[in-house]
């Protein structure tokens, strides 16, 4: 019983995360400002991390959590770099 509930909730979560990723595309591709795109990319990273976690739960393996860990720990580096570039025109000064 609990397995079924978990199974279904994971499926639903995955579908919703997938839809969320689709939504970020609108900001990422459409803009209109560069800041919107950067935020879109950041959201995409967060969604991807969650998707990987659900995938790990479904497969019952912890192997995929490292990828999620890397996104959560280092995914924001790209965002910061983009933000800094927008603000200062240079990533490292």
């Amino acid at each position, binding site marked *: 019983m609990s397995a079924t509930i978990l199974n279904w909730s994971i499926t639903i979560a995955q579908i919703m995360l997938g839809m969320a990723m*689709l939504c970020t595309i609108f900001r990422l591709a459409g803009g209109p400002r*560069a800041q919107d795109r950067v935020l879109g990319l950041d959201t995409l990273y967060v969604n991807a991390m969650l998707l990987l976690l659900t995938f790990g739960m479904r497969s019952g393996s912890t192997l995929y959590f*490292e990828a999620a860990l890397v996104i959560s720990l280092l995914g924001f580096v790209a965002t910061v*770099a983009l933000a800094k570039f927008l603000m200062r025109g240079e990533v*490292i000064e």
Partner: protein
Amino acid sequence: MTDDTLLISMVVLPFVGAIIAAFLPTMARNAESWLAGTVALAALGCAFLAYPAIAAGGALRAEIPWLASFGLTLAFRMDGFAWLFAMLVSGIGFLVVLYARYYMSPEDPVPRFFSFFLAFMGSMLGIVLSGNLIQLVIFWEMTSIFSFLLIGYWYHNASAREGARISLTVTATGGMALLGGVLLLGHIVGSYDLDEVLSSGNLIRNHPLYLPALILILLGAFTKSAQFPFHFWLPNAMAAPTPVSAYLHSATLVKAGVFLMARLWPVMAGTPEWFWLVGVAGLSSLLIAAYFAIFQQDLKGLLAYSTISHLGLITTLLSLSSPLGAVAAIFHMVNHATFKASLFMAAGIIDHETGTRDMRRLSGLFRFMPITATLAMVASAAMAGVPLLNGFLSKEMFFAEAIETHVPSILDTVTPYVAVIASLFSVTYSVRFIQAVFFGPPPVDLPRTPHEPPFWMRLPVSLLVLSCLVVGAIPGRTIEPFLRLGVTSVLGEATPEFSLAVWHGLNVPLVMSVIALVGGALLSFALKRYLATSRDGPPFFRRVKGQRIFDRLMALVANDGPRFLERYLSTRRLQPQLRLLVAAAILAAFLPLWRQGPGLGGLTFPPVFDPIFTLVWVVGTVCAVIAAYQAKFHRLAALALLGGAGLSVCISFVWLSAPDLALTQLLVEIVTTVLILLGLRWLPKRVEGAMPVPLSLTTRLQRLRDLILAVLAGLGMMLLSYAVMMRPAGQTIGAYFLERAYTEGGGTNVVNVILVDFRGFDTLGEITVLAIVALTVFALLRRFRPAPDSIPPPMQQQIQRKFDVAAPDRDDGATLTDYLYVASVIMQWLFPIVIVLALYLFLRGHDLPGGGFAAGIAMTSAFIMQYMAVGTRWLEDRLRVLPLVWMGFGLLLATATGLGSWLFGYPFLTSHSRYLEIPLIGEVPAATALLFDLGVFSLVLGATVLMLIAIAHQSIRRIGPARAANEAEET
């Protein structure tokens, strides 16, 4: 000492000496001379020790197997002929070292000289003692390279550079032809072994490939021995220090060509092709160079042309295909080496003590240096072929051969006449050499006051001249046994009966000699007036210079030709080049598909349809397509979109059960984004209004064509990958690795085990390439000159700075200190945490996803964060970032781990794995592969940080003149 060690040490010793010589202090003239002299004497001693064995008959052989399965062994072989040459090379080498000790001035950096000299001697001994043709060519090329370095020793001198360049170009081109010839020869015989080649003469001469092989080998020999029409490099090489000339142009470099011809004489000579090719080159060199030598004003120039002429004589003798001719040729090689070396040394002494080599300025030196003058006179008498000296003997043999009829033809008929005329010329220039330098009135306004040289500088000349005298007077007791030994080893059973006697009775050769001697003397007196003041070079031919033709040719090959090709076959514009490239790739992929049938096996979709995976792919595809669309004008947007596409690729890796790849790809993705952002700062800005609006029809058509091309290429790639992936897996190597990873590599992460163990050697190569790339990027960026419009700080910074300066309560640069404050604090705190992550990835790599590469990239991103958080200056004041050291450490560690397995008697890079029991922690896997992986980690970290930092440093570089001017203009 066994024969093996004897032979090998003869070749190896000079090279060892060269390495030691290179590291001695610059001023150590005496130490260098002792070293070089000892090495030369040791080689001479080895030759002496080998004499009994060789005299007893047969050749010494030593082999070191290298790639035995390809028939490649290092083979050294010494027979009588090689022995004769080895004696000359090492003996004259020793004398030249002694001479050079006194010739080189204290200001010259002698380590370089003696190092090159010894290496050259080693290469020459290598040629002489090679028992394998390929090996011979390698040593041959080495002599070209070292002679280049020796001739260009005084590289501050333009003529030395020029001479070195020309000699390298000519001799190395010849060397390449020789390689081709030797390969053909090896193909004909089926072996590169000298013994086997020498025993299959009939096979070679009757083979259809004989002529091409002959031409190529002769090209090599003629260029090396400066035979007409390749002779022009030798006079140019006279810019070398005189000891170098004395060595290269008497006993060694130029003798290599005739040595090879004599070596292959038994198997290649005897055909009309050989007679014509070798004969024409030899006779024309003999005559033309002798004529040119008369009209030289430079002492060394005269000797250079006379060298060409004497080599022509040897070549002519070899061309006759008669055994007696070969005997005379070998004899003359020895004689020429002795008298020419002494003459060069004498010329060097004159130059050294008077400061000039111009014969128009020199005069009457006999009264200042009587001993040197006497020695030089004897040596040039030997060169002229005066009786009782060694030159006379071989010349008599030459005359005797010249009047014989070998191959009835016009060339054979003219040979005796040419021989007499050339010999007459050689008497003329020999007389001129002596008469102009040592006799006549005392010289006026010489750069230095002439006097006798030090005893030790004169000693080598004296010894050589003494040997000329002794050999010339009592040849039967001195040189004959050795010569007979050398000749027998070349000719074998065809060795003719010959006797070396001074007096053969009144015969035709003697008459020819007398004509040459008398005529030459008369001619020199007739020309004395003219030559005292004439310009350099022979009349009428002054303007025809081989060198000028050579320069034209070089300009054509290196400059005009490529320009022409570029203009008509290529373009400098990037777009057409790319278009051609892509079109060619499409065509190349399409052709086999069209000829063999596509073989796609019907387009079927995989049976299982995963909606989430599809969604991820939709996201990725949309990102990629829009990124391509935006790439031209909105670089930042394209970059963000690329991040999205990359992310969906990483998720796909996870979905398809490749957590390793996903992990690594993610890390690479993040670092790449930062790298491109760093680069974006320096890209030129968009030029507004460069295109007219609306676009013209041609532009539209061009874009349509490019679009079609791009779509075609993309579709093709898609089809190809589809076809590959839908194929049944078949027997792949993957199964093998999966099976053995744990049992043999001791790790359960198969990818990592493959990288550090099974394919460790590949990985070593890859990280080496990575290191090279990083260093290249670093080197290129040091000379980076940004476009003028990206030199000033970016627009944002200018605006913020203006605001800071204008606001009364803010300092200059205040924006930077406050900027992204929270984020930067977090990033600083994250530093140790990311290090832990990297460590974690690294340690578990052997069994679970991770490994040195992923850990290295994770560590790099830790550094990037710090740089972004606090800026370059602040960080580098507090943290020692030494990417170069890390790279070096990584490469050394990886190599050392590989070498370590040698200590235990295993092949390179064998890994050992076991479990270690550590208290509290328990069993820990420990493999030597972990050390190797540490090397990979360190190198990846170093290389990535080096490249990123190199770009980041661009913005804090010292303001160059261009940038300063730009800023001055703004204010």
